[in-house]
Every structure is written in C-alpha cells, then in structure tokens.
C-alpha cells in the first residue's frame, strides 16, 4: 500500500526538482491531448517543442519572447516573495507601453541618441505609477490588491483601445486602429541582421543581475524575505511595512513597464490593440516555475516562451488553434501546484500487509 507522510523539512533539491517534474508531466499530458485529437503524440510534441528552435531564426524568436516574460516575472518575484499579490502586470505592461509610445510619438521624426533612453525610462515610470495604484489603495485603504491590480488591466486595455482608435491613430492610416510607425531613433537596435532579437535582452539581463543583488545582498531584500515568511516577525522587527509594499509594487510595475516599452520599440514598432499576447499573466506562471529565484526565472522564461512558439508551429503544421499554447501554460501551472504537494509530503511505497487485504 501507499503511505503519505509529512516531511519534516523541505530539502533544497526537491524545491528545484519539482518544477522539472511539472514540465515532464506537462509533456506527458500534452502527449495525451494530442493523441486524443488524433495525432501521433511524439510527432506532435516534436512540432511543438523541437521544430520551433531548430534554426537560428527560431532561437532568436525564443529569446524575443523570453525577454519580456523574464523581465516581468523578475519584477513579480519581488511582490510574491513579500506576500503581495500583484496579478496586474499585464495592465502595467500596457500602461508602460502607452506612456513610452506616447513619448515616442512626441519624438516622431526627431533625431538624437537620447530619444530611445527617454522613451524606455518613461515606459518604466508609466508601469511603476500604474502599479502604485493598487499599492497605495492597499496600504492606506485596506483594499485587496489582487482585485484592484486585476481590474486595472482592463482599464489599461480600454485606454489603449481608445488612444489607438482616437487621438493617437495614424493620420495616414486609413482608420486602422494603430499609431504611426515609430521613427528609427526610437526603435530598439536589432542585434543581428535578419533576426528580430533586439537590445531589450540586455535590459532584461541587467535587471536579473540587479534583482539578484537586491534580493540577496541588501536590507530591502532581507525585509522582503522576512515579510514573506512571517508578517508578524516583520512587524516585530520594526520594518516599515507600508513603505515596503509600495516599493515592491514600484519595482514590479517598472519591470512590466520596461517589458511593454521593449515590445513596442522592439518587434512591434508602433502602438496597436494587441501589444502583448498576455505576457503579463503568463509571467505569473514563469515566476512560480522559476521558484521566484532570478536564475530559475531565466530558465522558466525560456521554457514558457517555447510554448508560444510551439503553438504557432503547431497551428501551421497540425492545424490546431494557437491557443494550444495557453493549454500548455495552464498545464505547467497545474502540475507545478500539484507537485508542490511533494514539498510537504513524501510518498512511501510499502509492501501489502495481509491483514489489510
């Protein structure tokens, strides 16, 4: 018979192995789904996970998708580690995009090395300010940050809709819901000719490095860690709880804003209705799959980015809708939460005992 026992303490290896287990279970579950749909599961999984990255262009696309995911997830890890549930990164991304895009339109046909940095900075500030709304409401009016940050996503989406249809729409654009293409000095430099990978990846890598330092080497990081483990202890140690909530939301919002501005000045080059394929929501999965650890998040972002690419290839070769990607993302989160059970319990296989038969 099988016996479930509580673990006395969580070992570090189990802590980082369960995400790997979750990925394998996802592949297995995906295989079953493809089988039910009438495909050869091995072939289908190959189309989904191997074909997309079997050439240089594919690898570049992988990094293009992973860049915003990693950046947002890093920001979210600050919130999640300190028990603040910011799930409105999508809104902060869009608002950062709006502010950055607005500044890019102001600099339309303007030359100068300073144009891009100003746009990037304003995008970060936009996301940051937008994230401060749930933070301030939480600290001063006791609202629930989950609801507020989530609802603000729709506010940002509708605002973007209004702007690209109305005041900011391209005067020569035949009423398409989009702005002008940004001019060249306002675009992220492309790293290699013919590939879409852009300088935004450096912003992401620098952010990962900085957040590692903040989380593990500073007083702020220490306070975040303690607050996440025990709010009572944080209060007893005299940490300024309210200030900290606002700071983690600001960091998180700034990262999402940066991701937004990276998208519109990078691969997209203008504002339109769909500047993000739900990167802000998917990044929540990335953050947890990466165990809220900066290095873990890098790997997680690559894996989750692959589900975006896989969905596109599967759409072309297998004629399944690209929303299969979301199915895989959902499965990753599902199996991750499921295998977290192993963190706290261990399963023992015992021989059958006679009297139990």
């Amino acid at each position, binding site marked *: 018979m099988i016996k479930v026992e509580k673990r006395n303490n969580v070992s570090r290896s189990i802590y980082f192995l369960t995400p790997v287990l979750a990925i394998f279970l996802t592949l297995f579950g995906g295989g079953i789904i493809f089988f039910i749909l009438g495909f050869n599961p091995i072939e289908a999984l190959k189309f989904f996970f191997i074909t997309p990255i079997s050439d240089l262009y594919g690898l570049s696309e992988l990094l293009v998708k992973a860049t915003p995911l990693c950046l947002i997830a890093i920001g979210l890890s600050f919130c999640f580690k300190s028990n603040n549930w910011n799930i409105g990164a999508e809104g902060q991304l869009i608002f950062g995009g709006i502010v950055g895009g607005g500044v890019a339109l102001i600099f339309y046909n303007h030359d100068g090395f300073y144009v891009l940095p100003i746009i990037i900075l304003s995008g970060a500030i936009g996301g940051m300010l937008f994230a401060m709304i749930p933070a301030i409401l939480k600290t001063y009016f006791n609202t629930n940050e989950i609801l507020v940050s989530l609802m603000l996503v729709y506010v940002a989406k509708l605002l973007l809709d209004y702007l690209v249809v109305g005041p900011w729409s391209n005067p020569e654009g035949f009423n398409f819901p989009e702005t002008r293409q940004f001019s060249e000095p306002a675009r992220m430099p492309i790293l290699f000719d013919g590939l879409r990978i852009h300088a935004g990846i450096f912003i992401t890598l620098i952010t990962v490095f900085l957040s590692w330092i903040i989380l593990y*080497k*500073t*007083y702020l990081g220490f306070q975040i860690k303690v607050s996440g483990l025990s709010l*009572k*202890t944080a*209060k*007893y*140690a*005299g*940490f300024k709880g309210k200030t900290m909530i606002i700071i983690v939301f600001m960091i998180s919002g700034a990262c999402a804003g940066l991701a937004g501005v990276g998208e519109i000045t990078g691969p997209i080059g203008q504002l339109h209705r769909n500047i993000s394929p739900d990167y802000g929501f998917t990044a929540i999965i990335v953050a947890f799959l990466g165990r809220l650890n900066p290095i873990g998040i890098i790997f997680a972002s690559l894996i989750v980015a692959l589900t975006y690419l896989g969905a596109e290839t599967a759409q072309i070769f297998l004629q399944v809708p690209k929303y299969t990607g979301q199915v895989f993302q959902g499965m990753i989160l599902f199996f991750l939460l499921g295998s977290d059970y192993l963190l706290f319990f261990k399963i023992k296989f015992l021989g059958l005992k006679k009297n139990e038969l």
Partner: protein
Amino acid sequence: MNTKLKVSEISKIYPGCIANDKVSLEFGSGKIYALLGENGAGKSTLVKILSGVVKPDEGEVFLNNESIKLNSPLDAKKNNIGMVFQHFNLFETLSVFENLSIDSDKKDEELRALVNDILKKYNFKIDLDIPVLNLSAGQKQKVEIIRCLIRNPKVLIMDEPTSVLTEQETDDLFISLKQFSKDGILIIYITHKLKEVLSLCDEVAVMRKGKVVSVSNTIDEKIESLANKMVGENLNTIKKKINNFKNSEEILKISNLNFKSDDPYETNLNNLNLSLKKGECLGIAGISGNGQNELFQILSGEIIIEGTSIMFRNKEIAKLNPRERREYLMAFSPEDRISQAAVPELKIYENVALNNFKSSNFFEKGLVNEKKIKEHSKKILSNFSVNTDNVELKSQFLSGGNLQKLIIGRELITSPELLVCFNPTWGLDVGAINYIHETLIQINEQGKSSILISTDNDELLKLSDRICVIYKGKLSKIMNADTVTAEKLGILMGGGSID
C-alpha cells in the same frame, strides 16, 4: 432521562508535555460541572477528547455505562454530546437559519418549527433571517447553543463561554444554562474565572499540570480555596533578593493608557498606569487572554496608539516603531518564538539580523554586512551557551530552549536598559528554564530593568521585585513581591479583589 458521563484514566501526551495524566471524572445529569484550571492545565485537551477532536493515547469514555469511541466530531454528535467553542464557528454572511440548516438533515419547515419552539421555550430573542454578522457576541453564542439543542443533546460542553460576553449577556447565559440543567442536560463548564464557578456550578473539578487535583461541591468552596487549588502552593523557594528601588531613577512611565481594538477577540486595555525603576523587575501576572498580548505589543511598538504618552528614560517614545525603540536601548522577547521572535526557515545569523539597530552596522548603505552579522551571531551563540556554533544552521533545527537562548541573547547582547519579555520559558525543559531565569536575574543585578509578563506564577514570584495582575485589560495595584502570595495572585487572576 438520566445521563451519566464518565472518563476513565484518560492520558494524552504531546511531545514534551503531558496534557492529560490519567484523568478520571464522573458526571451526572441535573448538575452543572465546572472544570477549572490555568492555561495549560489540560482542560482544553480533555474537552477536545470529549468532542472527538483529539484522540486520547489511553483511557476510555463511558456514556451511560457504555464505552463509546470518539474518533471524530461526528461521533460526538451521534452520541448526543454538544460543544460550544470559545471562538464561534458561524458563517458571518449567511442568515441565522441558514447557519442552522447547514448542520441539520431536517426539512426546512420542520427545522424552523423546532427552532421556534426552542426560542420560545428558553426565551431567546433572535431574528432567524438576518445575517449572523449583524448579531452581538451574545446572540452568536445563542445561535451556537441552538445548533446543539436541535440535536437533543445529553451533554453540553461550554468552553470559556463568557470571554467574549458583556456582564448582562453573561447573566442571561447563566439563566439559560440553569434551565438546560433542569431539563436534564448534563452541563460541563470550562473556565478559569472563580466567581463564575461559585455562582453557576454545583460541582467543581480543578486541574493542574494535566492532573485532576480536586473534585468538590462548590458550596464547600470559597474563592480563596479554589485559587489555591488552581495555582498550587508548591512554590520554589529560590527567590531573587528583593531590593528597594524607592530612590532609584525612574526609567519607564506610562500613564492613563487606553487601547480599544476593532477585533472582538482582542482585549481592550483600560486606564493603564505603570512605572519602572532602574534595575527593577516588574512582573505582570494573569491568565492569558486578559490583555497581555496587547500590552506587550504596546510596549514593543507593534501597536502604536495615537495621543498617549510612554516616557522611557525621559524621552517620549510612544510614536516609535520597534526598531526605533531599540535605538533607545529597549529590547523585546515575544511569547511566540517560532512565528514572531524568530523565523524557523531563516538561518541563525539571519534571525540575529532581525534585531537591527544603528550601531550594529549590520546593514551599511542598505547592503547586508554578512561578515559582521555572522561575527555578532557567533558571539551570541557562545555567550548564551546555545548548543551549536554553526551560524548557517536553519533555526528550525534548534530545540525550543536553544532557540529561546538565541532570542534572549540577541536581545541582551546590545546591553539594553529595559527588556520586556512575555512568557520567556513557555514550553521549555527545566535546564533551559533555569538558564533563562538566571540570565534575567543577572541583568537586574547589572542595573538593567525588565518587565516580565508571564502566566507562570512560580516564575513571577521568583524573579519579580514588584508584581501586579492583569485582568480583563485592567492592571491591579502594583504590590511589592515579598507581600504577594500565590493565593493572592490566584484571587486577582480570577477576577476577585483583595483587601
């Protein structure tokens, strides 16, 4: 209908503590029984066994001479044992009737008729169709009682029912309980309030440290005699030399402090006054839940009350948070070792860094100075004889005693002028207790002051220079420790008054 309930040789052992040690008691219907004891005396464990929440290691329960198995709360219900817990288990947003019907398998009309009968019979005035959140604490308790009455209980157990009630509601409750008793329901009433025992109950069983120490008729008892039994007279004679601090410098003064909480389970503090001299230990006794938690948090700065005054060494500190108070050389050791004073998942040196103050230089320009924290931690581990020298060890691997030594060490190594500690030896073994007690005596000898909030009277009498009792958020007058006896403390703790 006669009901007899008997517990026989019940034992329950938790790691490091014998909660029930061969407890045998007999109850019969028509009487109200009091189960009296301090916190940790084993009352709650016994009651949990009777209501099926906890399984005993040994012993049996007999209902009408038949042995019954109580493996779950459902079994208790099947055997007609009803229980009203101290904290209510009601859905606040559902109506009274919905709350009652969740638990019942009767049809709605049938149930409503039954409930109306009960309301009429016992003269309860409750609107069945308003949400529970609109009810007062007393009314909520009545809903809980009705929930038990629906099932025609033979036994009704009430766990400290008056802790959330007003005086008027308490009187009402007593009238109802006496009526239930007349109707043949056996009532077991758990309390630590002596007056209630005398005014309500027929028989009283006193528990201390897991054992039943006396069973008697309440007619034969007085507040003093019950207090003696509850607290016990086996006092340690090793006592600190009590000093006279009349001419010493005053280091802490609180006057007219009031605290009103929004949380009904917290205790309000009324008109609190205290002062403390240099080198003195002030003991604050009381049964837990009488405002000790709130008082500790007010002293530490976790609760900040607008418009009060707390003077510490002639400086106003009322508005400062715990970290800022530490800069003024205060130190705090909370009751809850594993989720407040320290975090088990953190390493020893990280837990040491929780007591961060300017001169420690643990964090320079916002960066962690790991080397400094580790050096400092090593010093604490050796000075306070914690049985490890590995500062990288996660604190969850320390025993309770060693963790407490680490916490006390962390608080004391900065040579604070005042240490506030709350149940510092709770749950520790004798060796660790002695070590902590010696340390606390030592700091007074060095001219440092301490406030000891404790539910352990032996400890208070051993360490304090002056003692007072907190009861329902009010402090008794502060007495010199050499004039205080365990009996006096017991009376004050149970809400009585002396001279």
